[in-house]
Protein backbone atom coordinates (compact mmCIF):
# COMPACT_ATOMS: atom_id res chain seq x y z
CA UNK A 1 0.00 0.00 0.00
CA UNK A 2 1.29 3.45 -0.86
CA UNK A 3 0.07 7.02 -0.94
CA UNK A 4 -1.89 7.63 -4.12
CA UNK A 5 0.27 9.31 -6.74
CA UNK A 6 -1.73 12.29 -7.93
CA UNK A 7 -1.00 15.14 -10.33
CA UNK A 8 -1.08 17.85 -7.65
CA UNK A 9 1.97 19.97 -7.01
CA UNK A 10 3.12 20.55 -3.42
CA UNK A 11 5.66 23.23 -4.41
CA UNK A 12 4.81 26.17 -6.66
CA UNK A 13 5.92 26.16 -10.28
CA UNK A 14 5.98 29.16 -12.65
CA UNK A 15 2.37 30.28 -13.07
CA UNK A 16 1.09 27.59 -10.73
CA UNK A 17 0.40 27.64 -6.98
CA UNK A 18 0.96 24.70 -4.65
CA UNK A 19 -2.06 22.55 -3.75
CA UNK A 20 -4.41 24.23 -1.26
CA UNK A 21 -5.94 20.92 -0.04
CA UNK A 22 -9.50 21.81 -1.02
CA UNK A 23 -10.09 18.52 -2.86
CA UNK A 24 -12.05 20.21 -5.60
CA UNK A 25 -9.78 19.17 -8.45
CA UNK A 26 -12.66 18.01 -10.60
CA UNK A 27 -14.06 21.55 -10.78
CA UNK A 28 -10.93 22.72 -12.59
CA UNK A 29 -8.24 23.99 -10.22
CA UNK A 30 -8.11 27.83 -10.16
CA UNK A 31 -4.67 27.59 -8.50
CA UNK A 32 -3.27 25.46 -11.33
CA UNK A 33 -2.12 23.10 -8.60
CA UNK A 34 -3.77 20.14 -10.24
CA UNK A 35 -2.33 19.21 -13.60
CA UNK A 36 -4.48 20.05 -16.60
CA UNK A 37 -3.95 21.13 -20.17
CA UNK A 38 -5.08 24.62 -19.16
CA UNK A 39 -2.77 24.93 -16.16
CA UNK A 40 0.30 23.29 -17.58
CA UNK A 41 0.79 22.23 -21.18
CA UNK A 42 -1.14 24.93 -23.03
CA UNK A 43 0.72 27.81 -21.30
CA UNK A 44 4.01 26.03 -22.10
CA UNK A 45 2.99 25.63 -25.74
CA UNK A 46 1.82 29.27 -25.96
CA UNK A 47 5.23 30.36 -24.68
CA UNK A 48 6.95 28.80 -27.69
CA UNK A 49 5.10 31.24 -29.94
CA UNK A 50 4.30 28.35 -32.27
CA UNK A 51 0.80 27.57 -31.05
CA UNK A 52 -2.36 28.71 -32.73
CA UNK A 53 -5.53 27.71 -30.96
CA UNK A 54 -8.73 27.53 -32.95
CA UNK A 55 -11.65 26.87 -30.63
CA UNK A 56 -15.16 25.89 -31.78
CA UNK A 57 -13.66 23.76 -34.55
CA UNK A 58 -15.08 20.35 -35.33
CA UNK A 59 -12.71 18.27 -37.42
CA UNK A 60 -14.90 16.50 -39.94
CA UNK A 61 -12.19 14.58 -41.77
CA UNK A 62 -8.52 14.19 -42.46
CA UNK A 63 -7.80 15.21 -46.06
CA UNK A 64 -6.12 12.19 -47.65
CA UNK A 65 -4.03 12.37 -50.84
CA UNK A 66 -4.28 9.15 -52.83
CA UNK A 67 -1.17 9.92 -54.87
CA UNK A 68 1.23 10.41 -51.96
CA UNK A 69 -0.75 8.07 -49.68
CA UNK A 70 -0.44 10.69 -46.96
CA UNK A 71 -2.66 13.22 -45.23
CA UNK A 72 -2.58 16.79 -46.47
CA UNK A 73 -4.42 18.34 -43.56
CA UNK A 74 -7.86 18.49 -42.02
CA UNK A 75 -11.28 19.84 -42.83
CA UNK A 76 -13.23 21.52 -40.05
CA UNK A 77 -16.65 23.01 -39.48
CA UNK A 78 -16.83 26.13 -37.37
CA UNK A 79 -19.32 25.09 -34.70
CA UNK A 80 -20.75 28.60 -34.44
CA UNK A 81 -20.95 29.72 -38.08
CA UNK A 82 -21.21 26.28 -39.76
CA UNK A 83 -18.54 27.41 -42.25
CA UNK A 84 -16.14 24.80 -43.56
CA UNK A 85 -12.38 25.43 -43.57
CA UNK A 86 -9.33 23.44 -44.58
CA UNK A 87 -5.98 23.45 -42.80
CA UNK A 88 -2.85 21.92 -44.25
CA UNK A 89 0.13 20.36 -42.52
CA UNK A 90 3.02 17.96 -43.00
CA UNK A 91 1.89 15.79 -40.09
CA UNK A 92 -1.44 15.37 -38.32
CA UNK A 93 -1.72 14.30 -34.68
CA UNK A 94 -5.17 12.98 -33.81
CA UNK A 95 -5.89 13.39 -30.09
CA UNK A 96 -9.63 14.00 -29.94
CA UNK A 97 -10.19 11.45 -27.09
CA UNK A 98 -10.42 7.75 -27.87
CA UNK A 99 -13.80 7.46 -29.51
CA UNK A 100 -13.75 10.80 -31.29
CA UNK A 101 -10.30 10.16 -32.75
CA UNK A 102 -11.65 6.97 -34.28
CA UNK A 103 -14.74 8.86 -35.42
CA UNK A 104 -12.47 11.27 -37.35
CA UNK A 105 -10.62 8.34 -38.97
CA UNK A 106 -13.91 6.65 -39.87
CA UNK A 107 -15.04 9.78 -41.72
CA UNK A 108 -11.76 10.19 -43.62
CA UNK A 109 -10.62 8.76 -46.99
CA UNK A 110 -13.90 6.88 -47.39
CA UNK A 111 -13.46 7.01 -51.17
CA UNK A 112 -10.44 4.72 -50.76
CA UNK A 113 -11.58 2.61 -47.82
CA UNK A 114 -15.29 2.34 -47.15
CA UNK A 115 -14.65 2.06 -43.39
CA UNK A 116 -12.41 5.11 -43.35
CA UNK A 117 -8.73 5.85 -42.85
CA UNK A 118 -7.02 3.03 -40.95
CA UNK A 119 -9.82 0.54 -41.53
CA UNK A 120 -7.89 -1.83 -43.82
CA UNK A 121 -7.13 -4.21 -40.96
CA UNK A 122 -10.80 -4.46 -39.98
CA UNK A 123 -9.87 -3.39 -36.43
CA UNK A 124 -10.87 0.29 -36.58
CA UNK A 125 -13.64 0.85 -34.06
CA UNK A 126 -13.06 -2.47 -32.32
CA UNK A 127 -11.59 -3.54 -28.96
CA UNK A 128 -13.22 -0.74 -26.97
CA UNK A 129 -12.10 -0.86 -23.32
CA UNK A 130 -12.66 0.92 -20.00
CA UNK A 131 -11.96 0.08 -16.35
CA UNK A 132 -14.67 -1.73 -14.45
CA UNK A 133 -15.08 -0.66 -10.84
CA UNK A 134 -17.75 0.30 -8.27
CA UNK A 135 -17.02 -2.68 -6.05
CA UNK A 136 -14.88 -3.29 -3.00
CA UNK A 137 -15.28 -3.28 0.78
CA UNK A 138 -15.27 -1.00 3.77
CA UNK A 139 -15.22 -1.29 7.54
CA UNK A 140 -14.90 0.50 10.87
CA UNK A 141 -11.75 1.16 12.83
CA UNK A 142 -12.04 1.06 16.62
CA UNK A 143 -10.30 3.68 18.71
CA UNK A 144 -8.17 6.69 17.68
CA UNK A 145 -11.06 8.90 18.79
CA UNK A 146 -8.59 11.54 20.00
CA UNK A 147 -7.30 11.94 16.43
CA UNK A 148 -8.71 13.93 13.51
CA UNK A 149 -7.37 15.68 10.42
CA UNK A 150 -7.10 19.11 8.90
CA UNK A 151 -7.42 19.88 5.21
CA UNK A 152 -8.71 17.77 2.35
CA UNK A 153 -5.94 15.81 0.72
CA UNK A 154 -6.90 15.23 -2.91
CA UNK A 155 -5.96 11.56 -2.97
CA UNK A 156 -6.02 8.51 -0.75
CA UNK A 157 -4.07 5.29 -0.90
CA UNK A 158 -3.21 2.90 -3.70
CA UNK A 159 -2.65 -0.85 -3.68
CA UNK A 160 -1.04 -2.04 -6.91
CA UNK A 161 -2.14 -5.18 -8.70
CA UNK A 162 -1.19 -8.46 -7.01
CA UNK A 163 -3.42 -11.01 -8.80
CA UNK A 164 -2.09 -13.22 -11.62
CA UNK A 165 1.43 -12.06 -10.87
CA UNK A 166 4.27 -14.53 -10.25
CA UNK A 167 2.86 -17.86 -9.14
CA UNK A 168 -0.61 -16.51 -8.44
CA UNK A 169 -3.13 -18.02 -10.87
CA UNK A 170 -6.79 -17.07 -10.84
CA UNK A 171 -9.77 -18.24 -12.87
CA UNK A 172 -9.58 -15.07 -14.91
CA UNK A 173 -6.92 -13.18 -16.82
CA UNK A 174 -5.17 -9.99 -15.64
CA UNK A 175 -6.15 -8.13 -12.46
CA UNK A 176 -7.07 -4.96 -10.54
CA UNK A 177 -5.69 -2.32 -8.19
CA UNK A 178 -7.30 -0.59 -5.21
CA UNK A 179 -7.89 3.04 -4.43
CA UNK A 180 -9.12 3.94 -1.00
CA UNK A 181 -8.87 6.03 2.09
CA UNK A 182 -9.79 6.50 5.72
CA UNK A 183 -11.89 9.18 7.36
CA UNK A 184 -14.14 9.80 10.32
CA UNK A 185 -17.86 9.44 9.72
CA UNK A 186 -19.81 12.67 9.38
CA UNK A 187 -23.43 13.77 9.80
CA UNK A 188 -24.64 11.10 7.40
CA UNK A 189 -24.10 8.29 9.87
CA UNK A 190 -26.87 6.55 11.78
CA UNK A 191 -27.14 7.36 15.45
CA UNK A 192 -29.36 4.74 17.00
CA UNK A 193 -29.97 6.41 20.36
CA UNK A 194 -31.39 9.70 19.06
CA UNK A 195 -34.32 10.21 16.73
CA UNK A 196 -35.09 13.92 16.52
CA UNK A 197 -34.10 17.05 18.44
CA UNK A 198 -31.16 18.90 19.97
CA UNK A 199 -29.30 15.75 21.02
CA UNK A 200 -29.43 14.39 17.48
CA UNK A 201 -28.09 17.66 16.10
CA UNK A 202 -25.27 17.88 18.65
CA UNK A 203 -24.27 14.25 18.07
CA UNK A 204 -24.22 14.66 14.29
CA UNK A 205 -22.19 17.84 14.61
CA UNK A 206 -19.27 15.78 15.95
CA UNK A 207 -17.26 13.31 13.90
CA UNK A 208 -18.04 9.61 14.27
CA UNK A 209 -15.88 6.50 14.10
CA UNK A 210 -12.98 6.04 11.73
CA UNK A 211 -13.81 4.04 8.64
CA UNK A 212 -11.74 2.82 5.75
CA UNK A 213 -12.84 1.79 2.27
CA UNK A 214 -11.16 0.12 -0.69
CA UNK A 215 -12.54 0.38 -4.21
CA UNK A 216 -11.12 -1.76 -7.00
CA UNK A 217 -10.36 -0.77 -10.59
CA UNK A 218 -10.16 -3.80 -12.87
CA UNK A 219 -8.86 -4.44 -16.35
CA UNK A 220 -11.33 -5.05 -19.17
CA UNK A 221 -9.93 -7.32 -21.88
CA UNK A 222 -9.93 -6.10 -25.49
CA UNK A 223 -12.85 -7.88 -27.14
CA UNK A 224 -13.28 -7.54 -30.89
CA UNK A 225 -17.06 -7.30 -30.54
CA UNK A 226 -16.90 -4.38 -28.09
CA UNK A 227 -17.08 -1.71 -30.76
CA UNK A 228 -18.12 1.69 -32.00
CA UNK A 229 -19.63 2.33 -35.44
CA UNK A 230 -20.95 5.35 -37.32
CA UNK A 231 -24.71 5.60 -37.20
CA UNK A 232 -26.05 5.59 -40.75
CA UNK A 233 -29.29 7.28 -39.79
CA UNK A 234 -28.76 9.65 -36.90
CA UNK A 235 -26.94 12.92 -37.54
CA UNK A 236 -26.04 15.70 -35.11
CA UNK A 237 -26.87 19.39 -35.63
CA UNK A 238 -23.92 19.80 -38.00
CA UNK A 239 -25.12 16.92 -40.16
CA UNK A 240 -22.37 14.62 -38.92
CA UNK A 241 -23.10 10.97 -38.14
CA UNK A 242 -23.24 10.13 -34.42
CA UNK A 243 -21.43 7.15 -32.91
CA UNK A 244 -23.08 3.93 -31.89
CA UNK A 245 -21.46 2.25 -28.91
CA UNK A 246 -21.91 -1.48 -28.39
CA UNK A 247 -19.94 -2.88 -25.47
CA UNK A 248 -20.28 -5.06 -22.39
CA UNK A 249 -18.15 -6.71 -19.74
CA UNK A 250 -17.95 -10.47 -20.00
CA UNK A 251 -17.25 -13.55 -17.91
CA UNK A 252 -13.60 -12.66 -17.25
CA UNK A 253 -14.57 -9.34 -15.67
CA UNK A 254 -17.46 -10.85 -13.72
CA UNK A 255 -15.14 -13.45 -12.15
CA UNK A 256 -12.63 -10.73 -11.36
CA UNK A 257 -15.29 -8.71 -9.53
CA UNK A 258 -15.70 -11.46 -6.94
CA UNK A 259 -12.01 -11.09 -6.03
CA UNK A 260 -12.26 -7.30 -6.21
CA UNK A 261 -14.78 -7.41 -3.35
CA UNK A 262 -13.49 -10.33 -1.31
CA UNK A 263 -9.79 -9.49 -1.39
CA UNK A 264 -10.60 -6.01 -0.05
CA UNK A 265 -12.71 -7.45 2.77
CA UNK A 266 -9.99 -9.97 3.69
CA UNK A 267 -7.33 -7.27 3.86
CA UNK A 268 -9.50 -4.96 5.97
CA UNK A 269 -10.34 -7.80 8.35
CA UNK A 270 -6.70 -8.82 8.60
CA UNK A 271 -5.91 -5.19 9.47
CA UNK A 272 -8.32 -5.43 12.41
CA UNK A 273 -11.29 -3.49 11.04
CA UNK A 274 -14.78 -4.33 12.30
CA UNK A 275 -18.18 -4.48 10.55
CA UNK A 276 -16.45 -5.13 7.24
CA UNK A 277 -18.89 -5.39 4.36
CA UNK A 278 -18.44 -5.86 0.63
CA UNK A 279 -20.35 -4.02 -2.06
CA UNK A 280 -20.93 -4.27 -5.78
CA UNK A 281 -22.80 -1.20 -7.00
CA UNK A 282 -22.87 -2.62 -10.54
CA UNK A 283 -20.70 -1.24 -13.31
CA UNK A 284 -21.97 0.13 -16.63
CA UNK A 285 -19.55 0.23 -19.55
CA UNK A 286 -18.08 3.72 -19.82
CA UNK A 287 -18.56 4.75 -16.19
CA UNK A 288 -14.82 4.47 -15.65
CA UNK A 289 -14.40 7.34 -18.18
CA UNK A 290 -11.16 5.61 -19.18
CA UNK A 291 -12.24 4.74 -22.70
CA UNK A 292 -9.43 3.08 -24.63
CA UNK A 293 -8.89 1.16 -27.83
CA UNK A 294 -10.74 1.34 -31.21
CA UNK A 295 -7.53 2.25 -33.15
CA UNK A 296 -4.98 -0.05 -31.60
CA UNK A 297 -1.25 -0.17 -32.14
CA UNK A 298 0.41 -3.39 -33.32
CA UNK A 299 3.21 -5.06 -35.22
CA UNK A 300 1.09 -6.27 -38.13
CA UNK A 301 -0.97 -4.00 -40.44
CA UNK A 302 -3.40 -6.91 -40.86
CA UNK A 303 -4.38 -6.87 -37.18
CA UNK A 304 -3.82 -3.27 -36.07
CA UNK A 305 -4.61 0.31 -37.05
CA UNK A 306 -1.35 1.95 -35.90
CA UNK A 307 2.26 0.83 -35.88
CA UNK A 308 4.59 0.94 -32.89
CA UNK A 309 5.18 4.64 -33.37
CA UNK A 310 1.45 5.48 -33.37
CA UNK A 311 1.48 6.05 -37.14
CA UNK A 312 -1.60 5.00 -39.06
CA UNK A 313 -0.42 2.07 -41.22
CA UNK A 314 -2.41 3.45 -44.14
CA UNK A 315 -1.09 7.06 -43.87
CA UNK A 316 2.25 7.37 -42.15
CA UNK A 317 2.06 11.12 -41.44
CA UNK A 318 -1.07 10.63 -39.33
CA UNK A 319 -0.43 9.85 -35.65
CA UNK A 320 -3.07 8.80 -33.10
CA UNK A 321 -1.71 9.14 -29.58
CA UNK A 322 -4.68 9.25 -27.23
CA UNK A 323 -6.62 6.40 -25.61
CA UNK A 324 -7.65 5.09 -29.02
CA UNK A 325 -4.16 3.64 -29.55
CA UNK A 326 -4.22 1.37 -26.51
CA UNK A 327 -3.93 -2.36 -27.08
CA UNK A 328 -4.83 -3.37 -23.53
CA UNK A 329 -6.23 -1.36 -20.67
CA UNK A 330 -4.14 -2.54 -17.68
CA UNK A 331 -5.80 -1.57 -14.39
CA UNK A 332 -4.17 1.79 -13.75
CA UNK A 333 -5.21 5.31 -14.70
CA UNK A 334 -4.15 5.68 -18.33
CA UNK A 335 -3.54 9.42 -18.95
CA UNK A 336 0.16 9.40 -18.09
CA UNK A 337 0.66 6.58 -20.60
CA UNK A 338 -1.08 8.60 -23.31
CA UNK A 339 1.15 11.57 -22.49
CA UNK A 340 4.29 9.45 -22.62
CA UNK A 341 3.24 7.86 -25.91
CA UNK A 342 2.46 11.31 -27.33
CA UNK A 343 5.86 12.73 -26.33
CA UNK A 344 7.56 9.67 -27.83
CA UNK A 345 5.58 9.85 -31.07
CA UNK A 346 6.15 13.62 -31.37
CA UNK A 347 9.89 13.11 -30.97
CA UNK A 348 9.78 10.35 -33.60
CA UNK A 349 7.76 12.53 -35.99
CA UNK A 350 10.18 15.44 -35.69
CA UNK A 351 13.13 13.16 -36.46
CA UNK A 352 11.34 11.59 -39.40
CA UNK A 353 10.47 15.04 -40.74
CA UNK A 354 14.09 16.11 -40.48
CA UNK A 355 15.16 12.97 -42.33
CA UNK A 356 12.60 13.71 -45.02
CA UNK A 357 10.69 10.51 -44.36
CA UNK A 358 7.28 12.12 -43.82
Amino acid at each position, binding site marked *: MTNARVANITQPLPGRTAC*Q*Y*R*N*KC*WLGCPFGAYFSTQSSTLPAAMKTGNLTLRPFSIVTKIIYDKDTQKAKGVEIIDAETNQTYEYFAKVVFVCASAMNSTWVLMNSATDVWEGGLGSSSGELGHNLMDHHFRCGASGKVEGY*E*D*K*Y*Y*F*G*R*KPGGIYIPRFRNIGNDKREYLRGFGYQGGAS*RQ*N*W*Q*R*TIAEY*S*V*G*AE*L*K*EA*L*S*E*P*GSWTMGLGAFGEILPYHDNKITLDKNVKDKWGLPVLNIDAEIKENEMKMRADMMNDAAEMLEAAGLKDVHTYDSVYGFGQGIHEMGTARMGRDPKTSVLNGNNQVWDAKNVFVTDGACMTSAACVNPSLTYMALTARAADFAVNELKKGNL
Partner: protein
Amino acid sequence: MNRRQAVQKVALLVGGTVLGAELFIQTGCKTTPKKEAAEAGAEVLPDFFTKDEIAYLDEIAETILPKTTTPGAKDARVGEFMHAMVRDCYTPQDQQVFKDGLSTIEKISKDKYKNGFMQMQPQQRTELLTALDKEAKEYTGTDDYKTKQAALDKEENAKDSVERSKGNFGYGKARMSKHYFSMMKELTLLGFFTSEPGATKALRYSAVPGKYDGCMPYQKGDKGWAT
Protein backbone atom coordinates in the same frame (compact mmCIF):
# COMPACT_ATOMS: atom_id res chain seq x y z
CA MET B 1 -16.58 14.64 -0.03
CA ASN B 2 -18.51 16.86 -2.36
CA ARG B 3 -22.15 17.75 -2.25
CA ARG B 4 -23.14 15.12 -4.77
CA GLN B 5 -21.35 12.43 -2.83
CA ALA B 6 -23.08 13.79 0.24
CA VAL B 7 -26.45 13.39 -1.41
CA GLN B 8 -25.68 9.78 -2.18
CA LYS B 9 -24.21 9.05 1.21
CA VAL B 10 -27.03 10.53 3.27
CA ALA B 11 -28.81 7.37 2.24
CA LEU B 12 -26.77 5.49 4.84
CA LEU B 13 -28.50 7.44 7.52
CA VAL B 14 -31.97 6.23 6.80
CA GLY B 15 -31.23 3.20 4.69
CA GLY B 16 -31.54 2.91 0.95
CA THR B 17 -31.10 5.66 -1.56
CA VAL B 18 -31.99 9.28 -1.14
CA LEU B 19 -35.06 10.07 -3.15
CA GLY B 20 -34.44 12.51 -5.91
CA ALA B 21 -30.69 12.13 -5.55
CA GLU B 22 -30.26 10.68 -9.00
CA LEU B 23 -32.06 13.50 -10.70
CA PHE B 24 -30.28 15.96 -8.45
CA ILE B 25 -26.95 14.51 -9.48
CA GLN B 26 -27.75 14.49 -13.16
CA THR B 27 -29.32 17.88 -13.46
CA GLY B 28 -28.56 19.75 -10.29
CA CYS B 29 -32.33 19.87 -9.92
CA LYS B 30 -32.56 22.86 -12.14
CA THR B 31 -36.05 24.15 -12.14
CA THR B 32 -37.15 25.20 -15.56
CA PRO B 33 -38.72 28.63 -15.38
CA LYS B 34 -42.36 28.43 -16.37
CA LYS B 35 -42.13 30.59 -19.46
CA GLU B 36 -39.12 28.77 -20.90
CA ALA B 37 -40.67 25.43 -20.08
CA ALA B 38 -43.88 26.35 -21.84
CA GLU B 39 -41.98 27.60 -24.87
CA ALA B 40 -40.02 24.36 -24.99
CA GLY B 41 -43.29 22.45 -24.82
CA ALA B 42 -42.34 20.94 -21.46
CA GLU B 43 -44.78 20.38 -18.66
CA VAL B 44 -44.92 23.43 -16.45
CA LEU B 45 -44.05 22.60 -12.87
CA PRO B 46 -46.63 23.58 -10.30
CA ASP B 47 -45.52 25.68 -7.38
CA PHE B 48 -46.33 22.56 -5.41
CA PHE B 49 -46.32 23.70 -1.79
CA THR B 50 -47.97 26.87 -0.61
CA LYS B 51 -46.21 29.39 1.62
CA ASP B 52 -48.11 27.96 4.58
CA GLU B 53 -47.02 24.45 3.74
CA ILE B 54 -43.41 25.57 3.46
CA ALA B 55 -43.71 27.20 6.89
CA TYR B 56 -45.15 23.88 8.12
CA LEU B 57 -42.16 22.01 6.66
CA ASP B 58 -39.87 24.51 8.38
CA GLU B 59 -41.43 23.62 11.75
CA ILE B 60 -41.04 19.90 11.11
CA ALA B 61 -37.40 20.47 10.16
CA GLU B 62 -36.82 22.70 13.17
CA THR B 63 -38.18 19.97 15.44
CA ILE B 64 -35.72 17.50 13.90
CA LEU B 65 -32.77 19.93 14.07
CA PRO B 66 -33.64 22.77 16.46
CA LYS B 67 -31.71 25.95 17.11
CA THR B 68 -29.46 25.52 20.14
CA THR B 69 -26.20 27.36 20.70
CA THR B 70 -25.86 26.82 16.95
CA PRO B 71 -28.39 27.56 14.17
CA GLY B 72 -31.34 25.30 13.50
CA ALA B 73 -33.12 24.05 10.39
CA LYS B 74 -35.22 27.21 10.02
CA ASP B 75 -32.08 29.34 9.90
CA ALA B 76 -31.07 27.27 6.88
CA ARG B 77 -34.53 27.62 5.30
CA VAL B 78 -34.87 23.86 5.11
CA GLY B 79 -38.62 24.16 4.39
CA GLU B 80 -37.82 25.83 1.07
CA PHE B 81 -35.11 23.28 0.37
CA MET B 82 -37.58 20.41 0.89
CA HIS B 83 -40.05 22.18 -1.35
CA ALA B 84 -37.53 22.41 -4.20
CA MET B 85 -36.33 18.86 -3.79
CA VAL B 86 -39.78 17.30 -3.66
CA ARG B 87 -41.10 19.43 -6.51
CA ASP B 88 -38.13 19.03 -8.85
CA CYS B 89 -36.51 15.74 -7.97
CA TYR B 90 -39.17 13.38 -6.59
CA THR B 91 -41.18 10.99 -8.71
CA PRO B 92 -44.94 11.64 -8.79
CA GLN B 93 -45.38 8.54 -6.61
CA ASP B 94 -43.00 9.86 -3.94
CA GLN B 95 -44.45 13.36 -4.18
CA GLN B 96 -47.84 11.91 -3.34
CA VAL B 97 -46.48 9.95 -0.36
CA PHE B 98 -44.76 13.10 0.90
CA LYS B 99 -47.87 15.24 0.50
CA ASP B 100 -50.11 12.65 2.13
CA GLY B 101 -47.57 12.50 4.94
CA LEU B 102 -48.18 16.15 5.75
CA SER B 103 -51.92 15.50 6.02
CA THR B 104 -51.26 12.48 8.21
CA ILE B 105 -49.09 14.52 10.58
CA GLU B 106 -51.82 17.13 10.83
CA LYS B 107 -54.43 14.46 11.50
CA ILE B 108 -52.38 12.82 14.26
CA SER B 109 -51.74 16.25 15.78
CA LYS B 110 -55.46 16.97 15.99
CA ASP B 111 -56.45 13.49 17.16
CA LYS B 112 -53.78 13.16 19.79
CA TYR B 113 -52.90 16.70 20.80
CA LYS B 114 -56.21 18.45 20.02
CA ASN B 115 -54.27 21.07 18.09
CA GLY B 116 -52.75 21.62 14.67
CA PHE B 117 -49.01 20.90 14.42
CA MET B 118 -48.33 24.61 14.03
CA GLN B 119 -50.12 25.37 17.29
CA MET B 120 -48.50 22.59 19.32
CA GLN B 121 -45.78 23.13 21.92
CA PRO B 122 -42.20 22.21 20.90
CA GLN B 123 -42.28 19.40 23.48
CA GLN B 124 -45.39 17.89 21.85
CA ARG B 125 -43.92 18.20 18.38
CA THR B 126 -40.78 16.40 19.48
CA GLU B 127 -42.89 13.64 21.05
CA LEU B 128 -44.94 13.24 17.89
CA LEU B 129 -41.98 13.18 15.51
CA THR B 130 -40.06 10.81 17.78
CA ALA B 131 -42.98 8.38 17.46
CA LEU B 132 -43.04 8.85 13.68
CA ASP B 133 -39.28 8.30 13.49
CA LYS B 134 -39.73 4.97 15.27
CA GLU B 135 -42.55 4.03 12.93
CA ALA B 136 -40.45 5.01 9.89
CA LYS B 137 -37.48 2.96 11.08
CA GLU B 138 -39.69 -0.09 11.52
CA TYR B 139 -41.66 0.52 8.32
CA THR B 140 -39.68 -1.66 5.91
CA GLY B 141 -39.75 -4.52 8.41
CA THR B 142 -43.54 -4.73 8.66
CA ASP B 143 -45.35 -7.71 7.16
CA ASP B 144 -47.56 -5.42 5.13
CA TYR B 145 -44.55 -3.71 3.53
CA LYS B 146 -42.77 -6.99 2.86
CA THR B 147 -45.81 -8.53 1.19
CA LYS B 148 -46.32 -5.50 -1.03
CA GLN B 149 -42.65 -5.34 -1.91
CA ALA B 150 -42.50 -9.02 -2.83
CA ALA B 151 -45.53 -8.63 -5.10
CA LEU B 152 -44.10 -5.50 -6.74
CA ASP B 153 -40.67 -7.08 -7.25
CA LYS B 154 -42.25 -10.08 -8.92
CA GLU B 155 -44.26 -7.91 -11.26
CA GLU B 156 -41.36 -5.60 -12.09
CA ASN B 157 -38.88 -8.43 -12.63
CA ALA B 158 -41.28 -9.95 -15.12
CA LYS B 159 -41.55 -6.62 -16.98
CA ASP B 160 -37.77 -6.27 -16.92
CA SER B 161 -37.34 -9.75 -18.43
CA VAL B 162 -39.72 -8.89 -21.25
CA GLU B 163 -37.77 -5.69 -21.97
CA ARG B 164 -34.45 -7.52 -21.84
CA SER B 165 -35.67 -10.11 -24.30
CA LYS B 166 -36.39 -7.21 -26.65
CA GLY B 167 -32.84 -5.94 -26.20
CA ASN B 168 -33.75 -3.06 -23.88
CA PHE B 169 -31.51 -3.20 -20.81
CA GLY B 170 -32.57 0.14 -19.45
CA TYR B 171 -35.94 -0.68 -17.93
CA GLY B 172 -36.39 1.28 -14.71
CA LYS B 173 -38.09 -0.97 -12.20
CA ALA B 174 -40.76 0.62 -10.05
CA ARG B 175 -40.02 0.46 -6.32
CA MET B 176 -41.81 0.95 -3.06
CA SER B 177 -41.85 4.45 -1.62
CA LYS B 178 -40.18 5.12 1.68
CA HIS B 179 -42.07 6.12 4.79
CA TYR B 180 -42.93 9.80 4.48
CA PHE B 181 -41.08 10.68 7.66
CA SER B 182 -37.88 9.10 6.33
CA MET B 183 -38.19 11.46 3.37
CA MET B 184 -38.66 14.47 5.63
CA LYS B 185 -35.82 13.55 7.93
CA GLU B 186 -33.26 12.84 5.21
CA LEU B 187 -34.09 16.07 3.40
CA THR B 188 -33.81 17.99 6.67
CA LEU B 189 -30.34 16.60 7.40
CA LEU B 190 -29.17 17.07 3.83
CA GLY B 191 -30.57 20.58 3.56
CA PHE B 192 -29.23 21.68 6.93
CA PHE B 193 -25.73 20.23 7.06
CA THR B 194 -24.90 21.30 3.50
CA SER B 195 -26.27 24.84 4.03
CA GLU B 196 -24.09 27.77 4.98
CA PRO B 197 -25.30 28.03 8.61
CA GLY B 198 -25.24 24.25 9.04
CA ALA B 199 -21.83 23.74 7.48
CA THR B 200 -20.10 26.75 9.04
CA LYS B 201 -21.77 27.04 12.46
CA ALA B 202 -23.13 23.61 13.45
CA LEU B 203 -20.11 22.04 11.75
CA ARG B 204 -16.69 23.46 10.85
CA TYR B 205 -15.78 24.59 7.36
CA SER B 206 -12.52 25.68 5.83
CA ALA B 207 -12.82 26.96 2.26
CA VAL B 208 -9.09 26.95 1.54
CA PRO B 209 -7.26 24.81 4.11
CA GLY B 210 -3.85 25.48 2.49
CA LYS B 211 -2.27 22.48 4.22
CA TYR B 212 -2.99 18.91 5.20
CA ASP B 213 -2.45 17.34 8.58
CA GLY B 214 -3.48 13.70 8.63
CA CYS B 215 -3.24 13.35 12.40
CA MET B 216 -4.26 16.26 14.56
CA PRO B 217 -5.55 16.08 18.12
CA TYR B 218 -9.30 15.82 18.67
CA GLN B 219 -11.22 16.54 21.84
CA LYS B 220 -14.76 15.40 22.52
CA GLY B 221 -17.03 18.32 21.64
CA ASP B 222 -14.92 19.60 18.74
CA LYS B 223 -17.10 19.98 15.68
CA GLY B 224 -16.79 17.77 12.64
CA TRP B 225 -15.69 19.07 9.25
CA ALA B 226 -18.53 19.96 6.92
CA THR B 227 -16.58 18.71 3.95
